[in-house]
């Protein structure tokens, strides 16, 4: 009976986040999320759904119902490879890929993504490299990523690395744009905007949606 877990299957309304759906739906064109008829075309088309802990269709249902914790901690959003098949075939034209991105962003912001899962790690490494240099240096990115997730893999993947090196496809040179300053000003501007918005949200000033 040690594994008997049936008792916690019930969901209490107080545990759900009623604002979660609107949070996700606030992305451009995101309100179509509410039109979902749970037909499962997304899951059926998704080449990765068989590896997901919950199907894309269920993610939509969970978002709508406010299962924030379950959605943000699920592997499903991170397994999404952004192939956009679901978005193209959805009979309600829901931008499912964009919704997956929105969930990923929220998970990172709130620090609730599956911690040891390698995909968010790669995303973060990529992000910080580009933020700094304006370009990603694939060789460095891969090395950093392997170090952070599974250093033992370094040996396992040594063969591949060697081959890439031999064919001139692996370089540890740091790639960068020349005018880093331009990028810095752009990013600074967006961060300021973001802070202002957060501050105004906090004091209850709503942007005028016309």
């Amino acid at each position, binding site marked *: 009976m040690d594994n008997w877990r049936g008792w916690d299957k019930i969901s209490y309304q107080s545990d759900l986040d009623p604002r979660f759906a609107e949070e996700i739906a606030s992305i451009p064109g995101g309100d179509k999320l509410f039109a979902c*008829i749970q*037909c*499962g*075309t997304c899951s059926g*088309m998704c080449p990765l759904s068989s590896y997901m802990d919950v199907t894309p*269709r269920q993610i939509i249902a969970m978002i709508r119902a406010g299962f924030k914790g379950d959605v943000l901690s699920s592997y499903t959003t991170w397994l999404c490879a952004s192939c956009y098949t679901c978005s193209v075939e959805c*009979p309600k034209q829901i931008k499912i890929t964009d919704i997956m991105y929105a969930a990923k962003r929220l998970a990172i912001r709130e620090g609730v993504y599956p911690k040891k899962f390698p995909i968010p790690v790669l995303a973060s490494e990529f992000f910080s490299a580009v933020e700094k240099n304006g370009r990603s240096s694939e060789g460095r990115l891969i090395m950093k990523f392997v170090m952070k997730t599974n250093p033992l893999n370094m040996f396992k993947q040594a063969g591949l690395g060697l081959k890439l090196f031999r064919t001139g496809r692996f370089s540890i040179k740091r790639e960068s744009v020349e005018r880093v300053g331009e990028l810095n000003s752009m990013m600074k501007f967006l961060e300021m905007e973001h802070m202002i918005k957060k501050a105004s949200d906090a004091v209850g000033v709503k942007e005028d949606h016309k």
Partner: protein
Amino acid sequence: MSSLDNKHNGSARVGVYICHCGINIAGKVHIQDVVDIAKKLPGVTVAKEYKFMCSDPGQEIIQEDIKKGLIDRVVVASCSPLMHEPTFRGAMAKADGNPFMFQMANIREHVSWVTKDKGLATDKSKALVAAAVARVMFHQPLTKTQVPVNPNVLIVGGGIAGIHAALTMANAGKKVYLVEREPTIGGHMAKFDKTFPTLDCSACILTPKMSAVRAHPNITLWTYSDVVGVDGFVGNFKIKVKLRPRYVIEEECVGCLECIEACIFKHGKFKDEFNVGLAKRKPIYVPFPQATPLVAVIDPETCAYFRAKCKKPCADVCEKKAIDFNQKEEIVEVDVGSIILATGFKTFDASRVARYGYGKYPNVYTSLEVERLVNAAGPTGGEVVLANGKKPKSVAIIHCVGSRDANSNKYCSKVCCMYSLKLAHLVKERTEADVYNFYIDMRTPGKGYEEFYERLLLEGINFIRGRVAEVTDWAMTPDEEEKLVIRAEDTLVGKVRRIPVDMVVLAVGMEAQPDADDVRRMFNISCSHEGWFLERHPKLAPVSTLTDGVFLAGACQGPKDIPDSVAQAGAAAAEALALIDIGHVELEPNTAFVRDEFCSGCRTCMNICPFSAIAIDTEKDTAVVNGALCKGCGTCVAACPSGALQQNLFTDEQIFHEIEGVMNYV
């Protein structure tokens, strides 16, 4: 030239009545404020409010005020004039008021239902009331003209709806012209084997009605024909019908079909339209054995006589000498008083959903094709077989193909769930195959429909709730080799499944006819977004259109199954009969008229009138409007350079004052 000064009729006494429409208006408009404002408007002697002005007690309020002599004209602020203008005009007439001393302010559809803020809604209501009052001051008593109604009726389309409407009208003793563009009547229903949920034989219930049409003395049936011209108006339409040559004299042909036997093509070679391409026909053919009329037709596109030399064995073998290669297209003209459109639908083109492989994999069929396969009179004699002639061991039926999909049609086609159940039953019965129905939601509202669903559940049909993602031919496991593989999420289980099958049936939805837009233009009616003909009111006038005298029956108005189509056909016939029984129509007196003293005889109006309703009085050299021909558009009035032309109910004076009125209370 009209003056914009407030030089209204000094003796006018206007009664203003504001309707609450329950909470429909009162919930969004401060009624009392509007009443208070109305009381202050010049000319207003009475201003009142009531819960439902359209109700009998509401109408009585107006009638009493007229009888008491308090008012001689009326403004009702309530719903759209398209809804209740006739009601209130009628009420005034009953109280011996002139019904055209009336104006409606639309404060429901145009205000309370579309405005968020109560204050703004109230302001807008005040403005509309002020405008109506300002305008009604200039109304004149008018009378309606009566025009007799021609008792004949035109019915377009010979499917089950057209057939039923035709028989109803004909049995009531009216002359019916039934026009069908195919060589036979019968429509889609003639292609089906069984009908849901009773599983009674489609042909058995349809063909007697088809013969009855053919035999009925009151019905003139024109098949292989098209309506090419519609003129006139309610009660008095002039119709042009083009009879295409079928190269067989209809009156002579006895339907022995010897000619078909004799054709130089020994076997069918061309796409058989009736069998949706599953069989081949000859250039001379009848669509199916019970075709009505049972008269052969020659397709000039494929007949050898029209392309090269042919000794015409068909003509030689015909004892009645019915074959006539010199037949020419013919135009006939008829007068009718009413029109029933029963032009039906077309099925969705399944190749538009590329991922289901229709047109790519030979064993992917549409439901209409399978209807022919299960039909004992169909190309396989009722055997459900694959392209290679073998019976399928497993069959998938995919619902909602071309329905409920923003990438094709957003609406539900209403009939597919039920016919998919029917086909599942028939396929299982004929092949003992495993049948899988993939559905999004099972929709079975209707008498005996849910019971039919339960019967299938018990029969062992597999139901999987999930819209199929794709049909492919690549295998992941040995049992998938050489099969079509369905990939779908079983949403009730929450897992994606791959199911190998031999045959896939696509339950295609219903669409408006491809030429519905041309047809509706010809008959001067509207279409909804999806292309279906638009009814006058979705609930209360479902078979009428915005054009008087034109009625709708069957699926041309929206997806319908057979019982609904028949019911609607009956309703359309009843509407047409009611029109005929009254014997006349009253025309709205909103016609144009000329004020001779201003007319210079420039003939601008004459050239601009699309109905040739304006002539010139050569003695006075002024324009004259023929009230019977004028339809009241007012185009000539706007064009008249001297202001001599005016339109009853829409005079410059009335409109100018209405404009002035709406500018208030912003």
